[in-house]
């Protein structure tokens, strides 16, 4: 029973927890709603239209800055007076009506005036439009601010737009400059800039030849700018309208100016950097907006600051334009900002570069390792070659050892002849009236046989010798015949009939006589072994030579048992043997000898009976000899 209760109690707990969750969620959403009620409402009034990039940059920075510092949220309204294109009090009145109607139901916390016209507009209508609402401003030149004789509670960020610092910067970058061309347009604002420049740059007259390209039609201006003398500086100030009465956005003009001018162009406004000018001493809109936002935040927090503060211009240059005109970064005054620096190869691609360099280093290590390994391998190869030579020699000695009976017999023949001749001579001398003619003949025969014996020994000695591979032009048929002669007695003893079928006109091949004979002896020996079980009359061995344009061939054909198909491939491997005695090195050594001659050695079973071993040597005696 208790169990049942336990079971029933558990859903009750879950239900209770769920209720608590719902309550908490409701309380949370209520809190969020009350926070939304407390959001600050800020109106920003801009002088120009929103297509002027300065406005958009300031707007963006302002919003970002304000929003990032106000946790309860903020509503930002923006208005663009577009005063440059819509000047006059009539237009201002329309704007006033519009704003009044639009913001009647809003309780604004702060109004921000961006730019001189916006400030002027708001100062005149503040009392009726936004009574009691704090006003701050930014982007207003020092003179303008003074001229407005602002009340002390109206504070803002005052900008200084002087041409001198920019000319100073230009002179630092181009110390040898002689000419200064000041470009301004035909609008009122443009004209005010010209006046300001003429006043400010008066002190430079001695050092620079200053010309004012003011209020020219665009076509004329570009013409002029394209034909500037050497060592010139172009200072672009402002152009909302050209001499022909055409309206422009100054930021767009700068691109054309910078493109056509054959001298570096400097400007005083932010955002022109990056559109073809080298740079200038500039109040950046970004920092202006940040300063405005900070001031606005203080006001929104309830503070009532009483002093405006002055924006400090910075030297800003375009790295790409510096490069274009060959201006050196080292000449920039300290604290200059270099923009649009194209990242160096390293900056742009450092991971790739690190990777590649690492790869290269790794590769170098590998190469070194491989070189070392190669050296080791070469050494090993030399050793192997030495061993192979040794082994070749031993194999040859072994082969000769097996032939020793035949060889001894070979030597016994002339000795027998000599002994018999000597005996005959003695018998002649024992008789009275010796036959001197016969004696002379006998002595000649003895000498001939002794020579023959010597030759046999000589041949044996070369076969036994341990000389390194020695290449010489060889008549293969001779080599074959010599080998056959050497084994003749052995063949006879083994009842093997050797037939040689030699091609008459063999080209010479290059090679080592002794080693080739070693191969032949080995092949012949194997052939004889293969025919051991044949009836004596059927032990036939054919040694033939043949040639085509590429190679000269020697074949040793037997009529023995043949080679088992599965053994054909392993036949030439070391230590492979089918004999009860023998190391199985003979054929592998033969093949290595032939390969050292640049040739090849292979075997196949005859269609009828037995097997054939073929030695092919390159006709030109190529190969590694």
């Amino acid at each position, binding site marked *: 029973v208790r169990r049942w209760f336990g079971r029933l109690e558990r859903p009750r707990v879950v239900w209770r927890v769920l209720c608590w969750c719902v309550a908490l969620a409701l309380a949370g959403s209520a809190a969020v709603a009350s926070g939304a009620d407390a959001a600050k409402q800020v109106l920003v009034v801009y002088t120009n239209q929103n297509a002027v990039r300065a406005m958009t940059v300031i707007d963006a920075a302002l919003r970002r800055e304000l929003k990032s510092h106000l946790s309860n949220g903020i509503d930002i309204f923006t208005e663009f007076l577009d005063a440059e294109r819509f000047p006059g009090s009539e237009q201002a009145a329309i704007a006033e009506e519009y704003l009044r109607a639009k913001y009647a139901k809003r309780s604004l916390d702060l109004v921000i005036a961006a730019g001189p016209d916006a400030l002027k507009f708001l100062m005149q209508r503040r009392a009726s439009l936004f009574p009691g609402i704090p006003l701050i401003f930014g982007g207003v030149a020092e003179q303008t601010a003074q001229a407005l004789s602002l009340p002390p509670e109206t504070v803002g960020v005052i900008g200084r737009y002087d041409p001198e610092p920019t000319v100073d910067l230009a002179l630092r970058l181009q110390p040898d400059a002689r000419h200064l061309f000041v470009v301004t347009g035909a609008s009122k604002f443009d004209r005010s800039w010209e006046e300001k420049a003429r006043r400010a740059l008066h002190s430079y007259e001695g050092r620079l030849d200053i010309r004012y390209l003011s209020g020219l039609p665009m076509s004329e201006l570009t013409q002029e700018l394209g034909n500037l003398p050497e060592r010139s500086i172009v200072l672009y100030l402002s152009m909302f309208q050209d001499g022909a009465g055409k309206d422009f956005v100054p930021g767009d003009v700068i691109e054309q100016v910078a493109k056509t001018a054959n001298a570096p162009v400097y400007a005083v406004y932010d955002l022109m950097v990056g559109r073809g000018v080298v740079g200038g001493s500039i109040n950046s809109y970004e920092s202006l907006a940040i300063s405005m936002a900070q001031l606005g935040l203080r006001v929104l927090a309830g503070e009532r600051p009483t002093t405006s503060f002055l924006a400090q211009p910075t030297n800003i240059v375009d790295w790409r334009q510096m490069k274009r005109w060959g201006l050196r970064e080292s000449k920039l005054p300290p604290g200059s900002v270099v923009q649009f620096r194209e990242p160096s190869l390293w900056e742009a691609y450092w991971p790739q570069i690190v990777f590649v360099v690492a790869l290269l280093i790794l590769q170098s290590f590998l190469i070194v390792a491989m070189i070392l390994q190669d050296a080791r391998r070469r050494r090993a190869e030399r050793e192997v070659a030495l061993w192979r030579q040794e082994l070749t020699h031993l194999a040859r000695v072994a082969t000769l050892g097996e032939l020793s*009976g*035949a060889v*001894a*017999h*070979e030597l*016994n*023949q*002339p*000795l*027998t*002849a*000599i*002994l*018999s*001749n*000597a*005996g*005959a001579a*003695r*018998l*002649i001398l024992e008789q009275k009236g010796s036959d001197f003619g*016969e004696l002379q003949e*006998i002595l000649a*025969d003895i000498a*001939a*046989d002794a020579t*023959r014996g010597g030759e046999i020994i000589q041949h044996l000695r070369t076969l036994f010798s341990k000389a390194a591979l020695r290449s010489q032009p060889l008549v293969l048929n001779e080599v074959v015949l010599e080998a056959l002669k050497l084994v003749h*007695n052995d063949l*006879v*003893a083994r*009842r093997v*009939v050797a037939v040689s079928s030699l091609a008459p006109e063999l080209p010479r091949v290059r090679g080592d006589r002794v080693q080739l004979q070693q191969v032949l002896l080995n092949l012949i020996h194997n052939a004889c072994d293969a025919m051991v079980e044949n009836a*004596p*009359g059927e032990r036939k061995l054919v040694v033939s030579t043949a040639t085509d344009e590429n190679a000269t061939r020697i074949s040793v054909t037997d009529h023995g048992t043949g080679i088992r198909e599965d053994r054909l491939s392993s036949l030439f491997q070391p230590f492979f043997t089918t004999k009860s005695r023998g190391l199985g090195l003979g054929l592998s050594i033969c093949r290595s000898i032939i390969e050292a001659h640049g040739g090849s050695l292979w075997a196949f079973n005859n269609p009828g009976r037995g097997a054939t071993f073929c030695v092919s040597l390159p006709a030109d005696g190529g190969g590694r000899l």
Partner: protein
Amino acid sequence: MIAPANTVYLVDDDPSVLKALERLLRQAGFEVQSFASSRTFFAQHDPATPGCAVLDIAIDETDGLEIQRSLAESGCERPIVFLTGRGDIPMSVRAMRAGAVNFLTKPVATDELLATVRLALEKDFMIRRDRAEVDSIMRRVETLTPRETEVLRHVISGRLNKQIAADLGTVEKTIKVHRARVMQKLAVRSLAELVRLAERVKIGPRSAPARHS
């Protein structure tokens, strides 16, 4: 001693060896017929000519041992001296068993060779003399009548005349006559001589008498 017929058949495929051996044997006073191969040897060999053969054991496809066998099969008992450059023991045993006079290893000492050849020729002489003797006996044996041959067999079996007469179903006297005629035809004077002669021509004693003895 009667001077032996002295032809030496010399077979060796090495021309210079053949020439030198021939020269030596000639100088030693032998008649020499030399051959470079077994084939030419067989072509010209006359078994009737007295003499011996000196063979290189490994001449060509037909080696010395085969020549020896062929000669033996053809009934030629010519003594053979083998020369070899590399005689192994089994080979020499075979050769000697087959009746070779000697098995000499090259290079062979002159005196040894000459002595061996002389020995071989002597052997040949003996063989031929022996054979001639057997032939003359055979000729005399062939003059016997079957009855006389039968009596001879009984006589060499050591049986007495009386016993022989009983065996053959005749009288002793008749046996005596037969016996005297056999002695006369075979030109022997004693029983011992008769027995020896019969042995030479392989006339065996009568096989039957064992059961009476």
